[in-house]
């Protein structure tokens, strides 16, 4: 049985060390995956990312706010099958109102300062995934689910 504190620590490490994740959206009955730069809150309950509006993923999100985000620490070695960790966050997206004092925006720019101009562009939307649960995969097929209380 996985110790809860240990799992939290590993998930926290994964979410803070990895900068990019694969976002899954769905539009016109067709799943679609996109690589996005993200930042997660300390309690894992929110994940923020940004995208230009004239994109397929944004069109999908506008039609269907349900998303999944896969974050993993693969290193492209054979050992990945045993050592890599992957977490899939499942939740609902809302657009964040852009303001300098927004906690989520500060969190995002702290992790990705290079995206500051991108984020403040009028055509860029900042999105907040309100996470309902994580599916965490370790040691090839060891899967744990972490449900967030609301």
């Amino acid at each position, binding site marked *: 049985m996985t110790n809860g504190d240990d799992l939290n620590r590993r998930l926290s490490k994964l979410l803070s060390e990895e900068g990019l994740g694969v976002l899954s959206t769905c539009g016109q009955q067709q799943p679609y995956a996109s690589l996005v730069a993200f930042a997660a809150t300390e309690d894992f309950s*929110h994940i923020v990312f940004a995208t*230009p*509006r*004239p*994109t*397929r993923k*944004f*069109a999908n*999100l*506008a039609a269907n*706010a349900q998303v999944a985000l896969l974050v993993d620490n693969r290193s492209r070695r054979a050992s990945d099958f045993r050592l890599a960790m992957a977490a899939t966050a499942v939740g*609902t997206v*809302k*657009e*964040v*109102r852009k303001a300098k004092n*927004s*906690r*989520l925006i500060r969190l995002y720019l702290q992790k*990705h*300062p*290079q*995206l*500051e101009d*991108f984020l403040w*562009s*009028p*055509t*860029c*939307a900042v999105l*907040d995934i*309100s996470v309902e649960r994580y599916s965490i995969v370790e040691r090839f097929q060891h899967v744990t689910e972490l449900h967030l209380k609301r």
Partner: protein
Amino acid sequence: MKTVLRLDEIDEAHHDAVGGKAMALARVARTGLVVPQAVCVSAEVYDRFVETTGLRSRIVMEYDRKPFDQMRWEEIWDTALRIQNLFIKTEMPPDIAAALRDQISSELAGCPVVVRSSAIGEDSRKASFAGLHESFVNVRGIASILKHIKLVWASLWSDRAMLYRAEIGLDVSTSRMAVLVQELVAGQKSGVMFGVSPTAESEAVIESVHGLNEGLVDGTIEPDRWIVGRADGAIRSHKPAAREKMVAARSRGVAVVSLPKEKRAQAPLTNREVREVYHTGRSLEEAFGWAQDVEWTYRDAQLYVLQSRPITTATGISQQDNRAWYLSLHRSLENLNALRESIEKTYIPQMISEAESLGKKDLAVLDTEQLAEAIRDRQRIWGHWQKVYWDHFIPFAHAVRFFGQIYNRAVKPDDPHEFARLLPSAPLKSVQRNQRLVQMATAIGRRSNRPAKSADGKHGHHEACEVISDIAAKAESSTLRSLLATTSVDKQLVFLAELAKVAGKKTARRQVGRKVLVERFLGAFPAAQRRNAAGLLDLARASYKLRDDDNIYLGQVEAELLRALVEVKRRSRKAAGLRVATTTAGQFVQVLVDPDFRPSREAHASRGEASLTVKARQLVGQPAGEGVAVGPARVVKQREDLLDFKRGEILICDAVDPNMTFVVPLAAGVVERRGGMLIHGAIIAREYGLPCITGVPNVCQAVMTGDRITVDGYLGIVTVGPAPTDPVQAMPARSAHSVV
């Protein structure tokens, strides 16, 4: 390890931390020669600054926007401007600032200083960065020293420094910079000794000026020159200079001032001093093991060595690289003022009068031989003005860039290209010309007494033809004139009807914002310097206006060459298949003089030639005009495509030629392959308030006419395919905005 080191604390172990210049100066000091008191801020401080502020990742983001070898110089300059602005805007973290303040103040308390670059790898025998990075002379006060340290770090990212590093294969992304903070020795005479003459290995060269040597180093002040035998130190020759000016320290910075009369007749150095400089250079050659270029100054009879670096000409490096060209990318204020004078007072009036005099000639009365001669003559004139354009007009464009750099340092704007908003001071020639054309197009509908676009019947057609020939006679674009002479009337009428639809469309001029920006710019200088700042703005405005207007004037000369080619087309069926262009003029002459000549039909590039099995979805370029436009693309690959342009389409082209800007009032946005913020297409798009993206590789192949595209002029992204109804509107959230 200490991060701020005195020269006597630097040894070989510090090589990767202090850079070539500081390392060399420490070695000079160890030989017992007198050097100014100095400290070196090691490259570790640079590393900490870019790491803790997040600048390192932001630099990589800007630098890798496009592969470096695919960037035009204009794009590299824009990249440099953006990266340098990051340094200017980013505050030094308090702990770094406090450490520097303590250590620098304790070593150089209160004295004016020179803040010099000492890039890692600089001034080695393999590469010379001399002049590529910035140095600031006569900096006073610790706050100002810290500010100038940041500017020296930023100069690692100048266009010329990036180009040079890329050329000699240094990894730009891991480049770092140490900074030398040196006591300013305000010498009465200064100079450079070249340990080996570039023209004779047995000789050394000593150059010297009165005052500080900044004017000598940047070429503003002509020095006295002595040739000295390397073997015996004997003076072989002395060439005096005109000696009219000198560089002197001011309350801050330095200035070029008149040389006092008593010094004009006097060489800066006595023969004894020439010999002392020579012996100093030779002793440094012995200490370093190879010949040196040495900068020095005399203060009250004491010779100070300011810096010493190995001669790269002796290793053959200078012959192989383009450093001289990179250095020429930056012009001095004096040079820019001289260019303006010659352009405004000589070249432009001459060019206008030349075009006018050619325009008065009636080509229809010439016989075949005379027409051939007229074409040859016009080719020669066109070639002459093109050369003038490259030699004088293009270099003058640097005035805008010079101003941009000064503006950003003074104002620290969020948008590094904000300065461009101050530049338009009068309506651009292109805009005025377009307004006149639209008015004429509007007249067609009125005079033919029927809507011009329905010119499918015969009624009114004759009337319309008359108006078109009137427009063709008055059109100021050589391209439009030649199109009106060579395409079908129906096509012309449809196009002119489109133009008539935009009658009354205003350009996006932002006078109010501009006034505020001008005040902000001038207000950033102390009262005594405001006049100079205003002069610089005036110079930049002249340069900006000229970047548009010069093309128009050059276009008038070009139009006269094309007019002669159209005359050949009118006379000879053999010329029917020839494209009217300056590049085909030779073939037109052959049509006239060689009865056996059969021109080969030029193969026009077919649309969609890049057999695209891969379809573009998002293309990235450089944002060059703010705003978003959604609409059908019109890919203009050849001049003939211009008349197909419809209102609301997005102009996609290789480069907006000044002679094709007559379609811009119809366009909803502009995208071009050629890159740069200050190129013609970007200037004209901003003038009309159109979203604009430049530097999109392969855009004419990747996008097809009729594709629905979104031009995101904020981010520099072209999206091909379906787009949201309003790309700047927040998500139509069934849910409320997140309030987190």
